[in-house]
């Protein structure tokens, strides 16, 4: 009874338990809770009943695998957190599943842990998931790692064999810059060296697992670091404005002058507001506060408040580590939202510096990051980002990458501003001595890209080809890039996954830019269903990019179905087809909106051709200079 009272004064220490499937994690936890008297009466009876039903003696892992589906398959599908009391100290045990495809559940459980127990089957040694989990522990900054060499009964408790396993695991961890605090030989099933010292290993004089857990250092206070208060929201209640947020580092005091965000507006903390508490004059890291500012400026969500003499790093190119959670690989050129504390920045992956090979734990240059892979990459944001490089023991300085469907696809502990590293391949495109004006004068037209987007069957290629003929007859230098043509050559290595479609758009945009720079009028006919992909194209092409919406109702496109694709998509022969089972995001404000479901194609061709002619026409000034 008194143990709980003391425990409540401290925060619970989260401990994550990881390891290869079947190396005994769940059994360990069940045994640990039982041997340390942390099980409620009903639970033990439940486990015994569940075990009996399935013809087993006592299966400790049933305690955690309390979901029906897990029991039937014998696999933990999601992480579980269990509070656990050890000699007056509170822990939260996080059980992370070992099945490879469940990395996202594991990170969900492991991300906040202070320490980890890496369970390794002593008879099997480290396996693929042992390496993967160890790498993740390294990436999320867990420094206190206890290795539990489980099932030593299978080695007959032999000291020499145990020593060999310890040696090999230790070498593996060293390759990941991870140092184990301790190795504990144990048998979780029988309880050897869990809470009680094993009588079958008299040669072992190190701590039992519970003794090892008791040595885990308490979380370090972040209160003495320089202040970082990311704005979560701004409220206006009863004519008073409150800036709300959680302090990530340092402390804030009434009267402090703080600097707000990249706009660097100074303001004074006029008050720290709260309800049903004693008046507050200061607050520390970890607290969720609401402050009022003098003058009454209105920061944005995501702005960092910091003290004038200790500013965070500010950069638009950021080098970061990455653990990649999407099932499709990551490629250079893909765009995401980087969520960093409460801020959200649009970023593009501009390079992949290295990819970890999990088989031999070497880092190698790579073109893509495989599903559930680890890498070092560079992100480019469209604006400056304020951040602190991630350090173990801090909760900021690490972001997540979010895709267009708002899914979290990766975790990114930030390293720092991206600089050109020694030996990095640096590309210096050569500059042409022929100027844009020279080309315009010679061709009598302005090189421009007209980007036709719309559903399959809306008439993009038809219109582009029609306008091409008309413009060519009028003496203009014009060319068409259409989706199917690109896919038979330049892009024939690409499929129709989201990443491949983005890459297809990127290549089309790069080719269009080259042709435009050569002074050509380029008509691109590409479904390009996503707003962000077209934004990427616009970014690549730069000036002289006109978005044209070729707009026909889905029902009409489906009726036309010139390539039989809608029929194939409806019957399930092809998947991810725009309009059927993949989204089409219509342009918000196209330069030209062509409705093609009514009226003849001829009039739409004429409208397009005359729009192109007008846009690509040299202005008076340009002509005069020629």
């Amino acid at each position, binding site marked *: *009874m008194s143990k709980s009272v003391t425990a409540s004064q401290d925060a619970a220490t989260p401990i994550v338990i990881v390891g290869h499937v079947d190396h005994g994690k769940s059994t360990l936890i069940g045994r640990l809770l039982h041997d340390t008297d942390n099980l409620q009466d009903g639970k033990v009876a439940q486990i015994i009943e569940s075990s009996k039903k399935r013809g087993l003696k006592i299966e400790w892992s049933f305690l955690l695998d309390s979901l029906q589906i897990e029991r039937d398959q014998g696999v933990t599908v999601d992480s579980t957190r269990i509070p656990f009391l050890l000699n007056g100290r509170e822990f939260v045990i996080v059980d992370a599943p070992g099945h490879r495809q469940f990395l996202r559940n594991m990170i969900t459980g492991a991300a906040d842990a202070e320490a980890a127990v890496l369970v390794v089957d002593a008879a099997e040694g480290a396996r693929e998931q042992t390496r993967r989990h160890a790498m993740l522990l390294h990436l999320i900054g867990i420094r206190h790692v206890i290795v539990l060499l489980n099932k030593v009964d299978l080695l007959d408790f032999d000291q020499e064999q145990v020593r060999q396993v310890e040696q090999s695991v230790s070498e593996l961890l060293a390759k990941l810059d991870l140092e184990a605090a301790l190795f504990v030989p144990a048998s979780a099933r029988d309880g050897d060296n869990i809470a009680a010292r094993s009588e079958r290993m008299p040669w072992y004089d190190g701590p039992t697992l519970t003794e090892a857990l008791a040595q885990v250092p308490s979380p370090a206070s972040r209160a003495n670091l320089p202040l970082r208060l990311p704005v979560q929201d701004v409220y206006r209640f009863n004519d008073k404005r409150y800036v709300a947020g959680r302090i990530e580092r340092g402390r804030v005091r009434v009267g402090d002058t703080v600097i707000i965000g990249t706009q660097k507006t100074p303001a004074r903390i006029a008050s720290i507001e709260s309800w049903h508490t004693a008046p507050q004059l200061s607050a520390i890291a970890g607290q969720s506060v609401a402050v009022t500012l003098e003058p009454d400026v209105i920061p944005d969500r995501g702005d960092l408040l910091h003290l004038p003499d200790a500013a965070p790093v500010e950069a638009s190119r950021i080098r970061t580590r990455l653990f990649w959670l999407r099932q499709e690989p990551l490629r250079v050129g893909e765009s995401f939202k980087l969520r960093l504390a409460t801020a959200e920045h649009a970023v593009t992956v501009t390079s992949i510096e290295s990819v970890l090979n999990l088989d031999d734990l070497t880092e190698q240059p790579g073109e893509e990051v495989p599903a559930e892979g680890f890498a070092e990459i560079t992100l480019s944001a469209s604006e400056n980002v304020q951040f602190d490089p991630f350090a173990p023991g801090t909760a900021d300085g690490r972001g997540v990458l979010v895709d267009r469907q708002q899914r979290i696809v990766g975790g990114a502990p930030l390293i720092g501003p991206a600089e050109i590293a020694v030996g990095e391949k640096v590309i210096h495109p050569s500059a042409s001595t022929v100027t844009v004006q020279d080309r315009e004068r010679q061709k009598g037209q302005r090189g421009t890209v007209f980007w036709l987007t719309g559903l399959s069957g809306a008439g993009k290629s038809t219109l582009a080809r029609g306008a091409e003929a008309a413009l060519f007859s009028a003496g203009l230098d014009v060319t068409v890039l259409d989706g199917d043509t690109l896919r038979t050559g330049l892009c024939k290595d690409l499929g129709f996954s989201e990443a491949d479609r983005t890459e297809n758009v990127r290549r089309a945009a790069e080719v269009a830019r080259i042709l435009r720079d050569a002074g050509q009028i380029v008509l691109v006919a590409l479904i390009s269903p996503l707003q962000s992909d077209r934004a990427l194209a616009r970014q690549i092409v730069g000036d002289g990019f006109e978005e044209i919406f070729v707009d026909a109702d889905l029902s009409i496109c489906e009726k036309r179905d010139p390539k039989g694709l809608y029929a194939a998509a409806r019957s399930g022969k092809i998947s991810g087809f725009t309009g059927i089972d993949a989204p089409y995001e219509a342009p918000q404000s196209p330069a030209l909106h062509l409705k093609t479901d009514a009226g003849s194609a001829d009039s739409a061709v004429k409208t397009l051709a005359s729009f192109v002619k007008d846009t690509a026409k040299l202005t008076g000034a340009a002509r005069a200079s020629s």
Partner: protein
Amino acid sequence: MKNSNSPQTGFESTMDHLDQLEAQSVFILREAYRKLRPLAMLWSLGKDSNVMVWLAKKAFLGRVPFPVMHVDTGKKFPEMYNFRDEYTKRWDLDLLLGTCPPVEEMDPSLPPAARSAARKTAGLAAMIEKHKLQGVIAGIRRDEQGTRAKERVFSPRGASHKWDIRNQPPEFWDQYATPHEEGMHIRVHPLLAWREIDIWRYIEREGIPLVDLYFAKNGKRYRSLGDQDITNPVESNASTLAEVIAELETTRTSERSGRAMDHESEDAFERLRVAGYL
């Protein structure tokens, strides 16, 4: 966020366990209010949901800036209805009332008590649709029950309100899911990390009002409050907050042992939850 036991300083230097839980819940509630509109909080009138209303008042400087919702089975204890009426006024709450369909309309393959509990799922689904809610704040905790231990803080529900346990999104570093499809909503769980004893200690520290059914009369008290016909009191002499806390520090039975539907069959509760129960 310090308790009233140490008002003399005003300068904070450490946070205890309750301070940390409170700060995290406030952060979660503020995320929900920022990202999910329309938003509503489920108020079942029990101890946990009173703590939740209290935390919302902490987060929003003394007010609850969204409606609270009571999905009424019509079978609560009279004390609970009295409590609701009194504190709706005292706390200045914008109360939305929902009703539940009759038990005859529920899945007949469920055991009796679970079938009765399923009414609340149906009533809740109707409220979510009626008010087109993007976010529903609910007071479940990981330590209550095995399947609840698997929950996310922001738990996305598809158009059918089903909980897809096998396909939950990753959730880490306080970055939460947002709805991205028509008809989806998010269940927000600000109390997920709290334990039963934390709730009681926080109630004691803050002086949060409760229905007195939680305190022993004639050797019995309710540890968890559901519908009258499917909730049983436990043996207890704890008639004050301090006594309840002392009792919990030594108890070895689980909190929901008085809830009939948890015990009917091994998977009854999981089936309820997958279908959208809390």
